[in-house]
């Protein structure tokens, strides 16, 4: 993996809190806390974690659905907060579109499936004439595997299968020559036999159009299949980050280890542990200091309840936020060193 001088998009101490209850409530939900991540050009980064770990909130922050409570998002080195004009914001939204989880809920049943693509083209490329727009839309449909494109343009959502609808979602995302597509669980609602086709589509778009992806999923196996880098979230923070094969072969954070041991893998030898870990989701309401995984962690030490661990470089390009995890790098960095997820 190349270290780029300036990533396509990076987040710096990205934080988003939600107040629970009334205006005077002191209960603060820490959805995302101090997340530093970077996505390079033509790179697929997978963000994995359980529900409530903050992975979708990160996508929404990057898509500007939410404003960060603290921290910054930089696109081509430029902070999003500095984008004031409507033209600039429109351009950003065109270049960093989102593909949603639910292909049944994200297309309006009363419009033809080309509606979204045509609208996007009209808004973002006003110079195009109507016939040219339709031509471009047909080409976009073809590029996501909806062929012949002209025939698909006039169909209604109910005429398409789940996999085809999700391809329409990708065609919409492609309408404004994107650089980074935020894909929030794009295959989790699809049938097993058609999922892989959508994952392959992401790989093709990256290879041929050099589009980057932030692939949000709870399925580590699919993350391994398409992504270059893996970021594991736990309770709103990054637990571990690194090249996908390295993280899977040498998981450093105890949570990553737990997650990997829980993935059902028919190719793995059949062995059932005697006892089962009773898994409870983490508490992220006013969490205070300390590692958020400590209550479930078999390796927790006193330090873990006193201070929040920061990401440390433990292997080449591979970081984990854990006080206990051992480093495999010869020149051990001091604990206080904060290594950004992308170096």
């Amino acid at each position, binding site marked *: 993996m190349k270290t780029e001088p300036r990533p396509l998009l990076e987040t710096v101490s990205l934080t988003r809190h939600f107040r629970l209850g009334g205006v005077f409530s002191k209960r603060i939900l820490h959805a995302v806390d101090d997340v530093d991540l970077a996505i390079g050009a033509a790179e697929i980064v997978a963000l994995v974690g359980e529900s409530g770990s903050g992975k979708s909130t990160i996508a929404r922050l990057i898509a500007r659905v939410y404003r960060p409570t603290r921290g910054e998002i930089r696109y081509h080195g430029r902070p999003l907060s500095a984008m004031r004009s409507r033209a600039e914001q429109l351009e950003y939204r065109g270049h960093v579109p989102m593909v949603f989880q639910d292909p049944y809920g994200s297309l309006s049943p009363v419009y033809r499936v080309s509606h979204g693509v045509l609208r996007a083209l009209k808004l973002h490329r006003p110079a195009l004439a109507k016939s040219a727009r339709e031509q471009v839309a047909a080409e976009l449909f073809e590029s996501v595997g909806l062929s012949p494109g002209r025939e698909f343009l006039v169909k209604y959502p109910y005429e398409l299968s*789940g996999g085809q609808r999700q391809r329409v979602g990708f065609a919409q995302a492609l309408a404004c020559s994107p650089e980074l597509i935020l894909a929030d669980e794009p295959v989790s609602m699809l049938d*097993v036999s058609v999922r892989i086709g959508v*994952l*392959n589509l992401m790989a093709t778009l990256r290879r041929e159009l050099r589009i980057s992806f932030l692939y949000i999923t709870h399925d580590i*196996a*699919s993350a391994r299949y398409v992504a270059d880098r893996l970021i594991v979230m736990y309770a709103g923070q990054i637990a571990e980050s690194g090249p996908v094969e390295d993280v899977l072969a040498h998981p450093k954070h105890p949570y990553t280890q737990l997650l990997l041991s829980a993935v*059902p893998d028919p*190719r793995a030898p*059949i062995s059932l542990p005697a006892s089962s870990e009773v*898994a409870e989701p983490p508490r992220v309401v006013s969490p205070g200091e300390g590692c958020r995984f400590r209550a479930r962690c078999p390796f927790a030490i006193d330090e873990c309840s006193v201070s929040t661990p920061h990401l440390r470089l433990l292997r080449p390009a591979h970081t984990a936020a854990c006080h206990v995890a051992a480093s495999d790098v010869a020149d051990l960095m001091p604990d206080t060193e904060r290594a950004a997820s992308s170096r």
Partner: protein
Amino acid sequence: MIAAAPVLEVKELSVEYQTDAGAVRAVDRVSLDVAKGEFLGIVGESGCGKSTLLFAIARLLTPPAEIAGGSVHFGGRDMVAMTEPELRHIRWRDYSVVMQSAMNALNPVMTIGAQLRDAIEAHERQSAQSLRERSEQVMRLVGIDPVHLGSYPHQLSGGMRQRAMIAMALVFTPDLVIMDEPTSALDVVAQRSLMLQIKDLQRRIGFAAVFVTHDMSLVSHFSDRLAVMYAGQIVEIGDTRAVFADPKHPYTKGLMHSFPSISGPKERLVGIAGSPPDLLHLPSGCRFHPRCPSVMPRCRTEEPPFYQQDGDLVRCHLYDR
């Protein structure tokens, strides 16, 4: 493996939905049996009829769905012929059902304890004391602190709600527990933990289980036998490990090449071309033939029967000899 008379015997069971466009056969001549204490996994994609099959077995179908033929013998009695009062008598006591979404299956305005009490009192009159003891006992069985008998469903995590559902299903130590994707709303860690717990309870209590899921890999370590459904029919049924080690039906093979693995070499997967058929317009001959990579001329016209192959039953002409 287990020789005794089966707990559940389903023969040529068909279910139809009556629609404006005509009868849609969602389950077509399905036969299977489940031995005492056995764990049968049923896998298939959405719309393949797996949930409808479960509902038919449990006699929970509501119009427009109805059983169009076949029989379901449970403990030697034909459930299809049973009347609603007869069913009410054995339902929950002899067999129980765990639904997919605990959030929808539990009553949001009743405590877990009150819902358990309802289920128990529907079958037996009990003293408050023994009711309480019984409830606490099943809660401990599934690993929930009995203080949560006083909790409402929204106060529990997703995993605890599913375990509470299982506690309810086990309150009369039934012979058969029918489960419809009980883990699909859970995260992998919670899912694994629940599966281990179900398996452990099954070993201790000895109930037979029919477990429906869309996630083939999930049951790979847990079920004794596996049935694969496609477009309303079972296309392959056999020993789980044998099916995984050597899938016979082209559809099963395709499914096996559809999900990536976290171990082993990284290979490009292709999935299965096309998408599952619309039950109103089923393909002629073998229902899988438009998507099948090994399609032969006879597949287009002639519906394959079950062929025996290495102890498995496969509905595919490739195994005709």
